[in-house]
């Protein structure tokens, strides 16, 4: 039923091919999970992709078309998505407007909200995991780090999310975090779309903490109760949070509502950070310009 025509990528646990679904002629991507290399049987990332993509059905989340075994390899058949947001941000030949950014943020937030309402954390949101379909729809992809929102007593690893998009509670070693970590990543992506360069590009995990707090202020127990109890907190440099004016200067093209939304998503204290619902209901999405029609975005 499926052909593998062209190898388009290779990761630690999978090789990705372009192919065609023979019966319909539909273009598809096939993620072939390498199985021989893992001593513990099927790799956890594959288990997670299969487990969560099987449950999610939303226009802004990548579609799992089919799964099959072949030559003792597990193959995930996914919808074909030719490009991603990282490509768009980096390619200076591509001009995009505030209305385009609004449309991308709206679609991304809808996709992530759908994951959260199904009690699934993504834990690796970044521009190159936000793929773009031929008709301009943003699709949240790569659920290799996803997990169900934990039961209260579960202990989670803080070593998740690609560094530049990692929330401060994770940087400080939190083990009982929530869906707020995904919202932080989206806030950084929003900033990056407006700046067209990475917003908080730390060189390493320690530098990431410093870069984050230098840009957004070092949190204190006053605004984030308990933050000083993190073992890594003591060695931190203290920086003042940026004034609204400084933020305006940094994000010249951003409207007041856009700055409100970004600040809500980048609230240090995860308990106070906006949820995807609050983000979707922000006035940024109802003020002019309206979000572009995805199919018209170049």
């Amino acid at each position: 039923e499926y052909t593998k025509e062209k190898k388009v990528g290779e990761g630690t646990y999978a090789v990705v091919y372009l192919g065609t679904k023979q019966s319909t002629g539909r273009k598809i991507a096939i993620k072939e999970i390498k199985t021989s290399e893992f001593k513990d049987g099927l790799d956890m990332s594959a288990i997670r992709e299969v487990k969560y993509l099987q449950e999610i059905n939303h226009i802004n989340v990548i579609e799992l078309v089919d799964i099959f075994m072949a030559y003792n390899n597990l193959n995930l058949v996914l919808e074909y998505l030719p490009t991603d947001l990282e490509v768009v941000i980096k390619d200076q030949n591509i001009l995009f407007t505030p209305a385009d950014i609004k449309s991308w943020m709206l679609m991304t937030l809808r996709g992530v909200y759908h994951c959260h309402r199904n009690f699934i954390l993504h834990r690796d949101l970044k521009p190159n995991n936000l793929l773009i379909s031929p008709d301009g729809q943003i699709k949240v992809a790569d659920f290799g780090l996803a997990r169900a929102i934990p039961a209260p007593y579960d202990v989670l690893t803080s070593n998740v999310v690609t560094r530049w998009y990692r929330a401060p509670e994770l940087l400080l070693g939190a083990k009982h975090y929530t869906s707020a970590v995904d919202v932080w990543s989206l806030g950084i992506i929003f900033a990056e779309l407006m700046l067209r360069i990475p917003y908080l590009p730390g060189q390493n995990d320690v530098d990431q903490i410093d870069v984050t707090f230098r840009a957004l202020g070092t949190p204190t127990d006053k605004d984030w109760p308990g933050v000083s109890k993190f073992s890594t907190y003591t060695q931190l440099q203290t920086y003042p949070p940026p004034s609204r004016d400084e933020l305006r200067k940094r994000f010249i093209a951003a409207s007041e509502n856009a700055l409100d939304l970004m600040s809500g998503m980048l609230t240090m204290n995860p308990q106070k950070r906006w949820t995807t619902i609050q983000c979707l209901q922000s006035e940024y999405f109802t003020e002019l310009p309206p979000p572009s029609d995805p199919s018209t975005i170049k």
Partner: protein
Amino acid sequence: DPFKRYIMNEIVYEDPFIKDLTKKNEYIASGFRTDFVYDRLLTEAFM
């Protein structure tokens, strides 16, 4: 879901287990919120 089949009413919930967690620093600092927990449990009950 336009109509949830429950009203979250944290004040009346006697749930020592969850309440205890709100006193633990590593939970508070991590972003732990009782309303997130209750909402999930109630959603699963009325799904």
